[in-house]
């Protein structure tokens, strides 16, 4: 039986209108255009600095804001809990006889389900942001943080409007917007209270900054006599000028616009239309933000400016929308915020949806490492609840290479064993019972360690050690052999430390940091045993572990004594293509003369591109060897493998693969290359299953015998 999550994923995957909309938008290109002439990195640093420092001084800024805003005539109420917010607002409504409220967008009110609460007290709160209104009429929650009704078609919107207005409405979008204009205008004029959020709250001046494109916030804060703003503490910044970088980045990242049509700076009350003074109430809501700010890891999440660009680029989000991935706050960042603002445990399921591809992290204007924080959530949930027994056993098996080895060899001979037992599903990669879009990889009859022993290497003074990783060891020993051959050409002798084991990334990815650290500890000594110049890795995932994660991991697990050696390993670790490119440049490897080879397209594995930053090198090396490079669309978008992701979230993984295969086919290249055996299993299996002529190859396979 499918779990509730699997069912909702299945349902979401059948409705792909949101994905289609994101495709037509072509966000990466339009975003880049909006940022033309802007130093994005400088801007991101500025925002991270402004918001990061605000998070450090949350309490101080909240008090300062209160003082400044009150000095200008606003009433400021500080609320710790959602209940306190709800009570304050309902009491205010009762006191002032408020029956009708118009709201401009405020995610904070959605976070605490304010509308429902008000309705229970006989107060009607109408959303006026078009998307929010549509979602309200549909009795749904937002599917996207910036464009909340993106999942609905114009036909569905037409039905909702017809029902609301008791008359048949057209399906033409322009006309639908006019229907909303007419309906909502009456509401603005009839409302007793206007409610808003704020994009920024400036402590220095007590100012609320509100950005909209529709202009609804201007009306909400102008026409009714009372204005209540609900503001999460994370909106605070220290100074007036701190607002500029945020106002500059937000619309560019959110909607690829230079600036939103309207930006309002509201400081204290202004006169009402009848000459009286407006009543301005600002509710500063904590709801765990202070706790978050005190958390050494999660304080970073307070740097979010809610631009939703992390959703627009997320390969998982596009497939399942915010209704599956997140809750109110959607996507990767939504998973994190929901875990804090609601309950850590309730998001356990959706934490597994992030494939960790790092696409979001790369573009986040607040410089938040979203996948790392999701991983940290998993780690905390895992250490609190303990990993499920099977998962734990499976993980301990891969840590023990000899046992793992024996099991896989048995599997390889019987060709199907653990598949049905639910056990293999928790091993890092290769064996899954899902072959609808992808052929299963076969376990090689002879593992690399035995293949290696038979390779006749010329002796050399320059020794390098080879870290194979599980996939090359058991599925692709020929890649390992090709690597040895190419390096021999550069007068390097390869050693293969027999004691090596899994790099630990599968454990790390499931939040089991202690086991990941154990894996690191197991490997360090063997890798440093011979006096090697490099530790060569042919798998981008392993490279991430060796180059980046091990030292930190060991430190975090209080295994400090191993950190210096881990750093030594990190410094020596080099990806195969990186090394080959270097050797070509140093003229230690010379491509054979006049080779005119086939055409290739290159897939950037997430780990290679975004964790270790290797993407130019393989292209340069392959081109130097004589291949013709034909770039594919979205070359650095995840193929859907994601280690064990493909087994845990098979449906999403397969949809991601489908898209990748199409992009590959469209190039018309003869080979697709990637320096990650996981990607090769996924892509190669997909190509095979679809009967494609294109072959997936590791750069080493393509470069074997291509050098003098």
């Amino acid at each position, binding site marked *: 039986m499918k779990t509730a999550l699997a069912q909702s994923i299945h349902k979401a995957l059948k409705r792909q*209108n949101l994905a289609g*909309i994101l495709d*037509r938008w072509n966000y990466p290109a339009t975003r880049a255009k909006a940022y033309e002439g802007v130093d994005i990195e400088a801007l991101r640093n500025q925002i991270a600095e402004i918001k990061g420092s605000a998070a450090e001084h949350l309490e101080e800024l909240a008090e300062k804001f209160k003082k400044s805003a009150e000095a*200008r005539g606003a009433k400021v109420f500080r609320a710790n809990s959602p209940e306190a917010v709800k009570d304050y607002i309902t009491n205010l409504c009762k006191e002032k006889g408020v029956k009708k409220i118009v709201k401009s967008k405020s995610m904070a009110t959605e976070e605490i389900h304010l509308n429902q609460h008000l309705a229970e007290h006989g107060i009607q709160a109408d959303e*006026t*942001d*078009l*998307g929010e209104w*549509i979602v309200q009429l549909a009795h749904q929650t937002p599917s996207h943080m910036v*464009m*909340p*009704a*993106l999942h609905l*078609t*114009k036909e569905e*919107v037409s039905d909702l409007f017809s029902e609301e207005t008791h008359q048949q409405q057209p399906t033409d*979008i*322009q006309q*639908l*917007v*006019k229907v*909303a*204009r007419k309906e*909502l*205008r009456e509401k*603005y*004029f009839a409302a007793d209270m206007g409610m808003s959020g704020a994009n920024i709250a*400036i402590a220095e*001046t*007590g100012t609320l900054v509100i950005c909209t*494109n*529709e*202009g*609804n916030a*201007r*009306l909400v804060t*102008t026409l009714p006599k009372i204005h209540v703003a609900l503001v999460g503490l994370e909106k605070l910044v220290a100074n*007036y*000028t701190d607002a*500029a970088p945020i*106002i*500059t980045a937000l619309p560019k990242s959110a*909607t690829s616009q*230079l*600036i*939103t*049509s*309207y*930006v*309002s*700076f*509201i*400081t*204290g*009350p*202004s*006169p*009402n*239309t*009848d000459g009286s003074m407006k009543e301005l109430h600002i509710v500063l809501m904590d709801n765990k933000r202070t706790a978050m700010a005190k958390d050494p890891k999660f304080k970073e999440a307070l740097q979010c400016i809610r631009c939703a660009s992390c959703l627009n680029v997320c390969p998982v989000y596009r497939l399942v929308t915010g209704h599956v991935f997140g809750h109110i706050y959607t996507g990767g960042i939504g998973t994190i915020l929901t875990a804090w603002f609601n309950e850590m445990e309730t998001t356990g399921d959706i934490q597994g949806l992030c494939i960790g591809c790092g696409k979001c992290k790369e573009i986040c204007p607040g410089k938040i490492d979203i996948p790392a924080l999701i991983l940290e959530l998993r780690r905390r949930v895992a250490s609190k609840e303990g990993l499920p027994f099977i998962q734990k056993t499976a993980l301990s098996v891969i840590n023990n290479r000899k046992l793992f080895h024996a099991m896989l060899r048995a599997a390889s001979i019987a060709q199907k064993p653990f598949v049905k037992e639910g056990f293999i599903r928790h091993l890092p990669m290769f064996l899954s019972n899902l072959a609808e879009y992808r052929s299963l990889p076969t376990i090689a009859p002879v593992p690399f360690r035995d293949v290696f022993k038979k390779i006749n290497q010329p002796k050399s003074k320059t020794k390098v050690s080879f870290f194979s990783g599980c996939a090359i060891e058991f599925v692709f020993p020929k890649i390992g052999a090709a690597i040895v051959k190419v390096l021999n050409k550069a007068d390097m002798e390869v050693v293969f430390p027999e004691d090596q084991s899994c790099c630990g990334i599968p454990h790390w990815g499931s939040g089991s940091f202690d086991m990941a650290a154990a894996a690191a500890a197991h490997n360090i000594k063997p890798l440093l045993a011979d006096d090697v110049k490099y530790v060569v890795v042919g798998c981008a995932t392993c490279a991430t572990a060796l180059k980046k994660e091990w030292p930190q991991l060991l430190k975090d697990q209080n295994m400090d004594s191993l950190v210096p050696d881990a750093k030594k390993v990190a410094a020596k670790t080099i990806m195969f293509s990186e090394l080959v490119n270097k050797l070509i440049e140093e003229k230690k490897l010379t491509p054979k003369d006049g080779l005119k080879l086939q055409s290739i397209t290159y897939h950037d594995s997430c780990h290679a591109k975004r964790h270790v930053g290797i993407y130019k090198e393989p292209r340069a090396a392959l081109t130097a060897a004589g291949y013709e490079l034909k770039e594919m669309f979205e070359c650095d978008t995840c193929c859907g493998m994601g280690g064990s992701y493909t087994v845990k979230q098979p449906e999403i993984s397969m949809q991601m693969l489908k898209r990748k295969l199409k992009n590959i086919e469209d190039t018309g290249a003869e080979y697709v290359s990637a320096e990650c055996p996981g990607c090769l299993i996924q892509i190669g299996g997909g190509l095979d299953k679809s009967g494609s002529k294109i072959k997936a190859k590791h750069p080493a396979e393509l470069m074997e015998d291509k050098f003098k």
Partner: protein
Amino acid sequence: MFNQFKAAAEAAGNTEVQRFGTNAEAFNFIEGFLKKEEIKDTPGSYAIWADAPILKGVDTTALAAKVPGLKFQVTRELSKNAKIGITQMEWGLANMGTLAQDSSAVEQRLASSLSWIHIALLPSDRIVADLPALMTKMHPGKSNYIALITGPSKTADIERVLAIGVHGPERLVIICVDELGGMN
């Protein structure tokens, strides 16, 4: 600066930027514009003009009499059904084509946020480079409601298709006037 401002403002869509040397020319243009838009004194067809420095010394009663459908009272009721709203802005931002105004007086907001067309007057020499530059000119310490306006009211909330004129103007006409140079 003006050229950059004009290009950026017009790139925001449904926005046109005019420039005139004198106030008289600007008035002339506005009168012609109102005529072309066939404004008249019926709901949905009239124009409202919020108090503005350019009106200083102008006989608005005479002007209203001359142009039927042009009103200088900006009330809650009148703004609800106005076709055109006219206001005078204080600053322009060259890099984004943005207009800025201290909108603490509610009439300024009523006239610019409910009509179908917003005509915005701007002193031509009050165009600054960008937002940080504007921040040295306008400060929340002095203004309770600072409004930045760029292009028309718009949305892409249904299927990410652009639609103009959601709650406010679907057209923005910016008239830069050299003679307005030093306001007040």
